[in-house]
């Protein structure tokens, strides 16, 4: 069967193609349109997936949209009615936005792809998250916990998934917490309060939290209370997100936490005001973690299962994931590389295949590389046209050369094979550098990523030696496979891994298996032979405000605009003329 999955219209549109039960390809629209967090209907992504899979639209057995648009509209309309008359200002905008395009998904898909309406199916939003988490995870049975801002009505669901001996698979979602009571919205409200962009900058709150102390936990707990059945409820007096799209928090919220940060002013952590914002971030982070752990513990006790699959945008919170692994009772925690809405395209397609069509379960390759390939030839062409120094090598020579560049303090733009699905660069579109010094972290923030100085960088390390440098608990290596957990750097290595050790002594580790990215693995080994420490700093190959690069030419233009010294695509290496490394090579 050929099934196309689509997510669209809110943030991170994407498409994925599943053929005979196995994903063939998947890509986020932003990587093709070059508009960060592109929420438009993912036409370019769909076209690319069909072309890559060699599938004509007429040959598709089903097209699955990742949520039920009418049910979502029901929630939007109901919330407008409940907030009457305060919602009068946001009502026209909400109606225009929904009725203009979002509720007509069946017609849109049908007209774009020319497929009959009966072939178009709709999973629920959290079903898609659950499927993306469970059906891609190498486990027979697992508890499932999905949580994000909001889908249709659900903001958090719990359930279980099982692969049976007869080859069938089942996902049973048992209960849900409904909007407006939402962990994701709680966190997003603080994201907005701290002057960051909602649905985009939540990870900055997590990074900032490490600089603060959770001194305001009691205040945050006024906003979210536990219910007698073990769930939670928000005190809506502190929020405005359910009545207007213009503001997330109410004046009462400001009375408790003080004036919000102006997004155009930088955070100075040496001032009381800057520290207040950091403490705020630390406090909401702590409450989020505690709430998630409470629910995960309850789920563990109820199901008695040893594995947990986490899905939804909140599962991008690596600090919370690591605490869930350590404290909730599960032996293993699986988080897919794209737990947010982009991954729902793949989740929806897999759900339709396994659950709706009852096709036998097939093993899903355990990697994130489902996007377009990069071409070394294309890079060589554009760089030669610009008179850059271009070299083409066989694999061994290339790896040795790049390891030398890294060991000499160079910063490398690394493009290899197929693009990652999801927000993390996991070794195919990465900026790599030495993890040794804090100066390198500052250089990357200042000259390459052009971003706030408090933002940390992640390390990548061969899985077999990860435990030597990082305190990985049992199950930690699995969580670190897709950079989904934050763990302590061993105290004796913190100085020697200064660029990737966050202010609180932690790092968002990627523990790499050779089979997942063999060339990067070989590079880590080669770098380790030169420096004694097979760890590299690995950050996404993009500049602030831009999507991760896809094609070689996008990597090349990024390379020219920042302080990256060396660019690699496939077998091609380009050395920047102005780089210190270039003069060393010449000499």
């Amino acid at each position, binding site marked *: 069967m050929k099934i196309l999955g689509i997510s669209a219209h809110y943030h991170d549109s994407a498409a994925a193609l599943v053929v005979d039960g196995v994903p063939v390809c998947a890509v986020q629209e932003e990587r093709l349109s070059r508009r960060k967090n592109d929420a438009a209907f993912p036409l370019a992504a769909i076209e690319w997936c069909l072309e890559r899979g060699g599938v004509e639209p007429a040959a598709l057995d089903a097209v699955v949209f990742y949520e039920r648009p009418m049910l979502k509209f029901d929630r939007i309309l109901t919330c407008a*009615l409940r907030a009457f008359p305060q919602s*009068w200002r946001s009502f026209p905008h909400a109606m225009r936005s929904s009725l203009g395009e979002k509720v007509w998904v069946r017609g849109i898909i049908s007209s774009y792809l020319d497929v009959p309406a009966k072939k178009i199916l709709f999973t629920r939003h959290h079903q898609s998250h659950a499927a993306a988490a469970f059906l891609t995870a190498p486990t027979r049975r697992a508890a499932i916990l999905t949580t994000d801002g909001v889908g249709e009505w659900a903001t958090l669901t719990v359930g279980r998934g099982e692969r049976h001996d007869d080859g069938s698979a089942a996902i049973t979602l048992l*209960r849900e917490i409904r909007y407006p009571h939402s962990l994701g919205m709680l966190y997003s409200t603080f994201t907005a309060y701290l002057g960051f962009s909602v649905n985009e900058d939540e990870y900055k709150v997590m990074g900032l939290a490490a600089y603060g102390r959770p001194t305001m936990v009691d205040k945050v707990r006024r906003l979210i209370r536990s219910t007698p059945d073990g769930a939670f409820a928000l005190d809506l007096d502190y929020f405005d997100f359910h009545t207007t799209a213009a503001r997330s928090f109410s004046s009462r919220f400001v009375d408790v936490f003080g004036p919000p940060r102006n997004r155009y002013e930088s955070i100075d952590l040496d001032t009381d005001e800057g520290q207040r914002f950091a403490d705020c971030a630390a406090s909401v982070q702590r409450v989020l973690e505690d709430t998630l752990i409470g629910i995960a513990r309850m789920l563990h006790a109820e199901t008695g299962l040893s594995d947990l699959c986490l899905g939804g945008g909140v599962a991008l919170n690596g600090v919370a994931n690591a605490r869930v692994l350590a404290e909730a009772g599960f032996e293993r925690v699986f988080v897919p590389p794209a737990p947010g809405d982009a991954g729902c395209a793949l989740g929806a397609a897999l759900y339709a295949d396994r659950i709706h069509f009852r096709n036998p379960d097939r093993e899903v390759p355990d990697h994130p590389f489902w996007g377009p390939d990069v071409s070394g030839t294309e890079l060589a062409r554009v760089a030669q046209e610009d008179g850059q120094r271009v070299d083409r090598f066989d694999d061994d020579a290339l790896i040795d050369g790049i390891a030398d560049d890294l060991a000499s303090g160079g910063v490398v733009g690394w493009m290899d094979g197929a693009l990652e699905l999801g927000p993390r660069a996991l070794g195919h579109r990465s900026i790599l550098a030495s993890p040794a010094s804090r100066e390198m972290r500052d250089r990357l923030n200042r000259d390459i990523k052009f971003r706030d100085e408090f933002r940390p960088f992640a390390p990548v390390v061969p899985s077999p030696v990860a435990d030597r440098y990082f305190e990985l608990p049992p199950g930690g290596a699995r969580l670190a496979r897709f950079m989904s957990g934050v763990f302590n750097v061993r105290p004796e290595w913190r100085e020697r891994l200064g660029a990737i050790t966050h202010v609180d002594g932690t790092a968002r580790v990627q523990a790499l298996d050779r089979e997942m990215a063999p060339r990067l693995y070989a590079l880590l080994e080669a770098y380790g032979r030169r420096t004694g420490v097979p760890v590299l700093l690995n950050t996404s190959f993009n500049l602030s405000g831009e999507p991760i690069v896809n094609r070689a030419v996008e990597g090349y233009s990024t390379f020219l605009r920042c302080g990256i010294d060396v660019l690699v695509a496939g077998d091609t290496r380009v050395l920047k003329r102005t780089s210190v490394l270039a003069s060393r090579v010449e000499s």
Partner: protein
Amino acid sequence: MLAPLHRWIWRDDERRVHKLIRFGETETDGGRDILRAAEVTTDPLLRRLYLVHAIDELRHGMLFRRRAASLLPSLRASTKRRFYADWIAPGGHGADDLEVGDETDDSMLAFLHLSEKAAASRFTVYRDVLADDGPTCAVFDEILHDETFHMNYTLVQLARVSPQHHKRRLWRARLSRLWKAYLRVAMAIASVLGGLLLIVQYFVLLPPFAWLAKRAARRETAGWVAISSDHDSITRQY
């Protein structure tokens, strides 16, 4: 001729900061569009020029943002909704929209030339009315210097890539800008009228349903909700 109006617009400190921030965003967005043009063109010379241009635009965005940030502390906190006059005094590329992937090199160059020309003329007015604000004036001066280069190179390159038809291309781009301006105005009017109609419906039709919705909400208890079996069907949209 519009100098007094612009002087009035820029006199207000809060509006000045808002406009600088918005200009910063517009320049950054424009820079990303031109960057995209650099990535899709097959002409190596254009790629290099576009890249320089894009870097300039991104830098302009930063200059505007920095100037706005330096003015921010002098503002009093205000929650009042203000009139910012964005459509009277637009930024660099104004409200021009661009689908870079759909443009040929010559149509892109014609578009850029006209946009830069329009931006330069607007920025000259803004610089002149801001004579009493030296640092902001200096920002506009620096940007205007770059705009001159952008205007010139786009025209020269247009003549190179389309020697026979470059004048026709420019006229077509002018007409296209005019058409897009008409569409923007029409859409803005339609949006206002549509919004008014929806607000009327909101207050006339919705109150009884709002009462029912509020009553239903009061009966709901917070906490877990069991998921019903109709959850599993994926043929429905609701």
